Every structure is written in structure tokens, then in C-alpha cells.
């Protein structure tokens, strides 16, 4: 079922368009990297603060609010560039690629964690959560997103 969907994607207009162009894949990769920087910066700005580093004089809530649009913009950029990259080699490369599969698991976990537990924590008035628990939230966030990035880079080496 999934295998069929991946094969279909590769033969869709999107997959074909990327494959027929000499520059598209590389240009999308560059856009994916630029979006990675923005997403990573927005994530780290908040996580560093939760750990007591970076903009430590400002309240977590204020930093999280300032970072939010860039987090969304970075994610949007990742998806807009990532989907055509996936489409171009969906059946022939990504479906059987263990690193890609793990990247998707990490991505699902990172998104879920970021928009539930981490967001709820960062939006609180003061921080009623104990220091250790707060640090665990930041460390979990960094580890999950690092997992996405490492597996993403791993796709090419697999």
C-alpha cells in the first residue's frame, strides 16, 4: 500500500518535473538547507533559554512568542522544499531507505512534542514547572530535532 503510494508519487507531475530539470533537485536541497537554518535557529533560541543560556534575562514566554513565526516559516520552507525532493525519488530511493524512515519517525515525534508539551510549557505565565523538568523539555526538543537532521543527512549516505 505504502509502496504503491511512493511509486505513484515518483510518477506524479511533481516527481517528473523535478527529475526532468537539471537544477531543480540541487536548488530544492539548497532551499531545504536555508529552511533548516531558520527552523534550527527558532528552536534553539527557545531551548537555550529554557536551559538558562542565551537570552536569559527575558521571560521564556516572550522569547517563545518572538520565535514562533520563524519556527512556522522554517517548517513551511522545509515542507515546501522537502515534498518535491521526496517525490522525485520516492519509489526508487526513499521507500526502502532506512534513514528516511527513521527521519519520518523523528519528525512525527518532534512535531508532536513541539506543538503539545513544549508549546504548553513555553506559554505559561511564570514557569511553575520544576527546573529539572524544564531542562528535560529543552533537551528532548534538541534531541528529537537532531534526530531529524542526522537521519536527513544519513539518507544520502545510506
Amino acid at each position, binding site marked *: 500500500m505504502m509502496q504503491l503510494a511512493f511509486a505513484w508519487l515518483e510518477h506524479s507531475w511533481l516527481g517528473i518535473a523535478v527529475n526532468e530539470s537539471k537544477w531543480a533537485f*540541487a536548488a530544492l536541497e539548497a532551499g531545504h*538547507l*536555508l529552511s533548516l*537554518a*531558520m527552523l534550527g*535557529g527558532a528552536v534553539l533560541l527557545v531551548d537555550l533559554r529554557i536551559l538558562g543560556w542565551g537570552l536569559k534575562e527575558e521571560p521564556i514566554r516572550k522569547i517563545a512568542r518572538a520565535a514562533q513565526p520563524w519556527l512556522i516559516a522554517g517548517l513551511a520552507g522545509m515542507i515546501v522544499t522537502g515534498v518535491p525532493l521526496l517525490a522525485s525519488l520516492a519509489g526508487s530511493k526513499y521507500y526502502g531507505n532506512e534513514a528516511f524512515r527513521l527521519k519520518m519517525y523523528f519528525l512525527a515525534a518532534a512535531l508532536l512534542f513541539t506543538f503539545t508539551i513544549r508549546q504548553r510549557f513555553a506559554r505559561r505565565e511564570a514557569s511553575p514547572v520544576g527546573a529539572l523538568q524544564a531542562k528535560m523539555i529543552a533537551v528532548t526538543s534538541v534531541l528529537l530535532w537532531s534526530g531529524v537532521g542526522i537521519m536527513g543527512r544519513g539518507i544520502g549516505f545510506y
Partner: protein
Amino acid sequence: MGVILDICRYLEATSISVGIRESTWTYPVIESVHVLSLTLFMGLLLLWDLRLLGVSMRGFAVSRIWARLFPWIGVGAVLMIVSGLLLFWSDPVRFYGNVFFRIKFIGLVLALLNALAFHFGIERRLPDWDTALVPPRAARFAGAASLFLWTLIIVAGRFVAYNWFKPLV
């Protein structure tokens, strides 16, 4: 330019270069460090450049943001430079002959000049306009120049992996 090529050939023959080139894991690991450090270096720098343009983190005093973020951007820069030098060392002649690598190198020199201009000018006057609604023209220019140059560097850096053009050496 023959001197540079000679240096590249010399580097290529060193045991470190051969070691990185021939090992299965060293190159991918260094490259992964190079890519992931982008989040620390470029990610925070991007937010800072956007702050200089007056579009991100408005309401935060610029002098304090810079004081707090600079050490992390610096750590990111060190990781990028060390991993980048090792990647170059692994295959210097190929990189030297790659047109995108040369574009990236020119971009890096210009970005360094922009950073120096920032350091000796704008950085000293940050406390004068901490939370001003519109940053001074010089600050906006430096932010825009940095965004443009680093975008160019990242795009050219990614394109180095492709051999669309005949090597220059």
C-alpha cells in the same frame, strides 16, 4: 595561481587528507557536523540579521540580544570552520577547481568584511537604539548584506557537490 594549486596538491598527499578520503565514516560524520552546526551558527545569525532589519524580536534590546547570542553564534562558527577545513583538506584539488567552491569562498571573504565593518561600527552604537522601532540605516544595510551573503554561501556550498561544470584546474 600555480602556488595555490601546489599547496592543494601538497595537502592532498598528507596522511590526514588520505585518512579522511579513504575512511568510510569520517567524511559523512564531518559533513553531518558541518550541516547540523548550520542551525546554531546560521540559525541564530539569521534571527539576528532579521533583528537588524527590524523584523524579528522587536521589543528586545539589541545590545543585550547581541551580547547573549554572540557566544553561541561564535561556537557555531568554530564548528563550521573546523569541520569545513577538514572537508576541504580531504579533497583540496577538487574543491579548488570547483566553480561553486570559488563562489562560496568569495562570499565568505565578503561576509567576513561585513562582519568586521559591523564590529568596528554598528556594534559599538547598539545601545543607542536598543528598542527603537526602526533600526538605523547602517544596521539595516548590514543585516541585509549578511542575509544575502550567507544565502549565497549556503546555496553555493550545496552546489559544490555537483559537477555540472568542467573543473577549473
